[in-house]
């Protein structure tokens, strides 16, 4: 019964020699707290054995034991009580006393539970309360700011979008940087299951209701992650789902509702007048004033002269000037595309209902949940229903069966937002002209003359709403586990787990306007099935030699097969503008299917040893194979070792009363990363077609790749002080990735259209410090105040990269001696105050006049031709070099107030699309629009110290340079909450057991260090701003009722 409460605080089990032939007897009784209220769920264990039970809802219990044994009563937040069983004992009633926190039991790899005293690794657990503080559908978002060294980047603010989780920086260049996700001990599929890469990603974890999660444990270091061998390089996130609790049937209802808005306003688009003023400036500079290359055909720099010139020359025929004329005819109204495409005060609502029940033999947990969340952009939302069921029963005194199923369905109306699509509503803000009326006759303006001719773009008020981009995902996660307790020391566990995800994706383009217009409408339907099964067999052996040599040995095998099936059909030329299935298509039929699989097999041996919980030794060996590698390189060995010293257990510490715990730890291990595409190791051809016959296209270059290896080193210090009111730890880590799996670019003349091939090239390190501290500042019965925080640093360096494998792009570099993907750009030297021309520093290396060798100095000459400016290493990449969180909570007589600040910085981010939003090129300004930064910052006359070059100076000013590289540092009020828990006396009158209400705000405040960074600072992990929906803030009301 020791796993009845998985993942929460429970009692430490000591191993002692058990008496045999003892006299069996049954003890019963009632457990209450110090006020006399019955305590349900108290753990009652026969000391030295694994036999145990829990008190029921009225605090009653009954347990089989023998004379001479001792019963241990334990409950979270209360001091453990031991009572011997004598021949005369028949019942034990006791009042437990609230006390210092018990030793925390931590779940590590493969569900092995141990106390902190038995661990040498770095493990952080986030509990259910913290998980539910962040009301977003993707559960990983709750980890932001709560785990040192863990950052979460949001790919889109549309609900359900993927989150990019990075633990201790990025370990790989081209292989996956995502941690391994494990649910109830079994690795599961993760990542994006969206049916199209053009639209919002669909995070498979958005399928799991956060209300069903008991805790999330993050494994970061070598000793903790090495058991997962090949998959542990990027850290491991272990999710434990809720289990039934012993006691009477209890119901719980949690409801929340709120509003969502973009967390930051972002870059603002110019209005029609601002655009017109900029266009005048540009025309004057190019066609008027010949100081700046103007041709002199406009003779006067006045609005009327310029307007007349346009209307009296061939310019008047150009569509964008015709739009100007139309806007002028209409009286120059304010057409605000940003307002039109934004769904202000988007609604979110969530309801979870659960029931739990249990006795000493079996327990169950069942839940249903509903979530509806709108996006802050028009045309997108998310709706989910989910059910969870877990049943555990003791078949007899040897066998325990646990069955669980999590089934959910979500419908995400995604946004077409992953590139500069004409129908991307986020693009519309900056690319749709404020001279063009969004509406025509009360409907979205799609008039060929009044819209299409003027903009050349799509009206997203039509396409975002009328077109369909639906991810309809059904996920079933089912697990059956049998635990066989062979004897007190030896346990065998077998788990069979099925993880099935089905995404039906529908893409419908209306025939009336937009992408579907030319083809008379387009329908694409697709079903992708991800089927993954895992079989895990585990033998745990816990024993003690002598009095104090404690061993915990595990042998394990795990086999996983991932299968992906895809079936796609499409048709065009639709019968009408309302039937949206392929059956409405009359032409352009297309269909295809695909299948791929991946298999992994792992054998693991784990050893944990401690001497009297003073000296701790841990080790692991695993042998793992993955089908993604060529046959002779498929299997590899991974191992780890850790040492710990529990200083507080030494006798010389017994006099130092303020130290409760003091622990030193060190770890070393080898992990791996196989996070590359399937079947990359061989040269492959796919079937194309030419003139209706099969044609073979070379689609895989094929390269002999092997495991990417991670070498991790850790040092740590943990302490608890002053009656455990202060808890904390400091650590240093060093991760070295060897034989990086690199998608090495191929020259075009290597004749592979794919353009790159995976290779094992180069090494990289990530080093840093981590610290966590929690202080109970005030801890009285009525008033409690806790502050806790975490802080971590990452220092990244590419330590080896063959010269010809360097990745050099227009903005970034991967090269020995620099950070991975370090920003590498020409250096901006500002706008020339006299001419308004853009300028850069040449930064050409100065050579020694005698030897001809570089002196290390750079020539700081200023140039107006960016081709003369060398790219420089900026010393920064997109990865925050520091990050952390600070949380505090006040409790007073049932009221609570709490908040979390998250901060990150030391990195730089690049504003992409600046070529349009910050343009000085008439060819871009005229058909589209630009940001108010242009209006406010553009050079207008000699002497202006301006941020933006002369309008009409062309595209060069927005060519990639440090001009658009900003400090990424920011602070965000991640969470703030205020609530009240009603007194039991009060709610019992209403027939309830408990009730609480709260109001919570998420991301309500954001500060960025760099005032030029108008976009949300939480951007894609690659560091480029993009045209996806930005992260959101929310205000949500919550109600929880237990009965």
């Amino acid at each position: 019964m020791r796993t009845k409460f998985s993942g929460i605080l429970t009692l430490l089990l000591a191993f002692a020699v058990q008496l045999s032939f003892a006299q069996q007897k049954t003890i019963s009784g009632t457990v209450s707290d110090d006020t006399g209220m019955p305590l349900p769920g108290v753990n009652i264990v026969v000391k030295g054995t694994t036999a145990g039970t829990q008190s029921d809802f009225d605090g009653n219990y009954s347990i089989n034991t023998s004379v001479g044994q001792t019963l241990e009563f334990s409950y979270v937040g209360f001091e453990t009580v031991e009572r011997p069983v004598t021949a005369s004992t028949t019942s034990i009633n006791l009042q437990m006393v609230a006390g210092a926190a018990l030793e925390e039991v931590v779940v590590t790899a493969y569900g092995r539970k141990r106390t902190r005293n038995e661990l040498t690794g770095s493990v952080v657990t986030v509990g259910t309360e913290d998980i539910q503080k962040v009301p977003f559908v993707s559960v990983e978002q709750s980890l932001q700011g709560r785990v040192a060294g863990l950052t979460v980047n949001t790919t889109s603010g549309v609900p359900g979008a993927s989150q990019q989780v990075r633990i201790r920086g990025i370990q790989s260049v081209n292989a996956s940087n995502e941690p391994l996700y494990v649910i109830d001990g079994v690795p599961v599929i993760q990542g994006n299951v969206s049916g199209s890469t053009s639209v919002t990603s669909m995070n498979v974890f958005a399928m799991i209701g956060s209300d069903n999660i008991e805790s999330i444990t993050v494994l970061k270091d070598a000793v903790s992650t090495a058991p997962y061998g090949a998959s542990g390089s990027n850290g491991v996130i272990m999710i434990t789902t809720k289990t039934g609790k012993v006691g009477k049937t209890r119901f719980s209802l949690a409801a929340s509702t709120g509003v969502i808005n973009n967390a930051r306003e972002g870059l603002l688009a110019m209005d029609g007048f601002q655009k017109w003023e900029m266009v005048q400036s540009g025309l004057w500079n190019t066609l008027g004033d010949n100081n700046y290359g103007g041709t002199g055909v406009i003779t006067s720099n006045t609005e009327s002269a310029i307007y007349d010139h346009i209307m009296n020359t061939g310019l008047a025929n150009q569509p964008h000037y015709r739009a100007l004329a139309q806007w002028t005819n209409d009286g120059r109204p304010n057409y605000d595309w940003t307002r039109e495409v934004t769904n202000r005060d988007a609604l979110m609502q969530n309801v979870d209902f659960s029931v739990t029940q249990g006795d000493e033999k079996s327990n169950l947990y069942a839940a249903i949940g509903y979530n509806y969340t709108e996006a802050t952009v028009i045309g997108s939302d998310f709706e989910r229903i989910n059910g969870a069921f877990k049943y555990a029963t003791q078949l007899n005194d040897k066998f325990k069966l646990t069955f669980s199923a999590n089934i959910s369905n979500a419908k995400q109306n995604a946004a077409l937002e992953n590139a500069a699509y004409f129908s991307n509503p986020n693009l519309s803000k900056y690319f749709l002209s404020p001279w063009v009326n969004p509406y025509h006759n009360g409907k979205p303006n799609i008039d060929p003359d009044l819209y299409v001719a003027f903009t050349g773009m799509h009206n997203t008020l039509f396409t975002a709403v009328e077109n369909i981009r639906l991810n309809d995902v059904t996920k079933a996660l089912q697990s059956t586990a049998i635990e066989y307790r062979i004897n007190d020391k030896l346990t065998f566990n077998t788990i069979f787990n099925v993880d099935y995800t089905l995404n039906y994706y529908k893409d419908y383009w209306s025939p009336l306007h937009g992408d579907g217009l030319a083809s008379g409408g387009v329908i694409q339907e697709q079903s992708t099935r991800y089927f993954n099964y895992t079989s895990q067999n585990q033998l745990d052996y816990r024993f003690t030699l002598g009095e104090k040599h404690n061993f915990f040995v595990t042998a394990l095998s795990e086999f996983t097969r991932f299968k992906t099936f895809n079936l796609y059909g499409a048709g065009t030329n639709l019968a009408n503008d309302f039937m949206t299935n392929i059956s409405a298509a009359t032409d352009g039929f297309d269909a295809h299917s695909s299948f791929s699989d991946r298999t992994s097999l792992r054998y693991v041996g784990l050893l944990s040893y401690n001497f009297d919980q003073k000296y701790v030794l841990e080790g692991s060996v695993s042998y793992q194979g993955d089908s993604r590698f060529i046959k002779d390189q498929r299997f590899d060995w991974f191992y780890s070792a850790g040492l710990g010293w529990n200083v507080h257990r030494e006798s010389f510490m017994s006099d130092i009363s303020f130290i409760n715990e003091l622990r030193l730890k060190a770890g070393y291990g080898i992990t791996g990363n196989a996070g590359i595409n399937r079947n990359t190791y061989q040269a492959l051809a796919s079937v194309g077609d030419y003139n209706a016959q099969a044609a073979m296209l070379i689609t895989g270059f094929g390269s002999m790749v092997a495991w990417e290896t991670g070498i991790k080193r850790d040092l740590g210090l943990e302490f608890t002080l002053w009656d455990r009111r202060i808890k904390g730890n400091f650590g240093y880590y060093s991760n070295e990735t060897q034989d990086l799996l690199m998608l090495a670019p191929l020259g075009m003349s290597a004749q592979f259209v794919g353009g790159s091939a995976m290779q094992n090239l180069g090494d990289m390190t990530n080093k840093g410090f981590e610290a966590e501290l929690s202080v109970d500042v005030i801890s009285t019965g009525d008033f409690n105040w806790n502050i806790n925080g975490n802080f971590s640093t990452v220092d990244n360096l590419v330590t080896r990269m063959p010269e010809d494998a360097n990745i050099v792009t227009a903005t970034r570099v991967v090269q020995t001696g620099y950070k991975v993907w370090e920003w590498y750009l020409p250096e901006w030297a500002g706008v020339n105050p006299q001419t308004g021309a853009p300028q850069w520093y040449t930064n050409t290396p100065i050579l020694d006049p005698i030897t001809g060798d570089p002196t290390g100095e750079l020539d700081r000459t200023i140039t107006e031709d960016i081709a003369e400016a060398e790219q420089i290493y900026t010393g920064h990449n997109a990865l925050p070099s520091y990050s952390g969180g600070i949380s505090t909570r006040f409790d007073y007589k049932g009221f609570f107030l709490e908040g979390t600040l998250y901060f990150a910085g030391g990195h730089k981010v690049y504003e992409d699309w600046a070529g349009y939003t910050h343009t000085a090129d008439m060819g871009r300004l005229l058909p589209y629009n630009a940001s108010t930064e242009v209006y406010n910052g553009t050079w207008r006359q000699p002497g202006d110290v301006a941020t933006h070059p002369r309008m009409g100076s062309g595209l060069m000013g927005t060519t990639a340079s440090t001009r658009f590289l900003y400090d990424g540092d920011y602070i965000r009020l991640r969470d703030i909450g205020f609530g009240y828990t009603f007194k039991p006396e009060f709610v019992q009158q209403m027939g309830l057991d408990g009730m609480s209400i709260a109001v919570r705000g998420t991301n309500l405040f954001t500060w960025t260090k760099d005032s030029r960074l108008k976009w949300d600072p939480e951007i894609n992990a690659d560091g480029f701003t993009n045209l996806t929906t930005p992260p959101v803030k929310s205000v949500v009301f919550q109600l929880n009722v237990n009965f």
Partner: protein
Amino acid sequence: MKKYSLIAIMALFTVTLFNSCSKDSLEPTLADTVAVDIKTAADLRQYVDGAYDRMAAYQYWGRNIIIAGEVRADNTFANLNSGRFITFSQMSYDSQNADVAEIMTFAYGAIGNANVSIHADDVEGDQAEINHMKGEAYAIRALAHFDLVRLFGQQHVSGQGGMSALGVSYATSFKGDELYVPRSTVEQTKQFIYDDLTTALSLMSSSFNDSQKLRITTHAVNAIKSRVATYFREYSVARSASEAVIGQFQITPADNVVDSWASTVVSPSSIFELAQSDIDNNGINGIGNIYRGNAYGDIQVIDAFPTDAEFGPNDVRNSDDMIRTDNNNRLRNMGKYPMGAPYSDNIKVIRYEEIVLNYAEALIETNPALALQHLNSIPERRDGTTYSVANMENILKERRKELAFEGFRFDDLARMGRNLPLIDSNIPHHGGVQYGQHTYAFPIPNREVNANPLSTQNFGYGN
């Protein structure tokens, strides 16, 4: 108790067995792809056709290379409707330019398929047919390298050495002993092209020629040689190569000109086309949509073009069916690649009319009378203006009219050492470029320069 132990042992045994069996079954399934391997003539056919498929991609012959030849010259400009090809139009490309990179990627992609086909050993099947297909592969390799050298070679850039300037890396094997080769000179590149065309002819037999002309035929090999020699102004080569084609095809008569573009039937004047069909085409990214699409439609005809090209009053090539203003007052190429959705126009790579004009040009010095006869044979069939003398000026004039919007104009100006004229300062265009400017050659894309240690950037693009 004993019963359960037994069950447990059995369970242990079965699951362990299940796992250990699996170690050997870690072989992934190849369901949608095959390992690159050519065993039979049918396999070879598919790999050679793969090369055509790469050529037909919009990144290469399906659009970009045609536009590169048009929008940099004096026929068309990029109107910024979707922002496409503006850097071509302004000749402001740099080594990061994606369109430039795509052309090179897909040209070499076609070469890769050709090389895999050429090096296929022990192919089962009819040897003559196998030879013919390998000949096609040699010709594809030659044509693709020619396309690369006319875009990336520095023969027209001042101070780079003319024919001894840097040409392109001539790739003769896919994943061979050497992944990369250095850039040959233009002269060497030309010679490799000739050699490949000679090999192609020696392997091919006209009895295997594709009647639809959607694959390279023996005639097409001669036509390619005619085009290459004309480009390099090696008129004796051009003359003999053209002669081998002259008379094998017919010039489209005036009445059929419009239809010959709009028809799905391969025209009698066509020598080599790349297939596009209702189900396999470049869609909105194709050539038709960039000339007149609603959303794209970036490549607009310069207003002065019909006047500058000096079309006669009845010339069918300047009729409303071929060139006219759209309802947004933009002058449009309406006649070539006219189909619109589903964009099933084949891509006309070589038309007989070009070879006739190549032949006429090659004869200017040696047989002016015959040259004039061939030169006039085109306008005579266009209700156009005929010429009284066959000189280079008139040849270029007729080429501009006949081959407009097919991607020839830039090369015709460049190979004659002409400047690119300023057309209209009000349109987004290059504004006039002197012959010899570095922009006459595209930059070598960054990826090629960075990943291929043997490559060299072109003059004027940094490094």
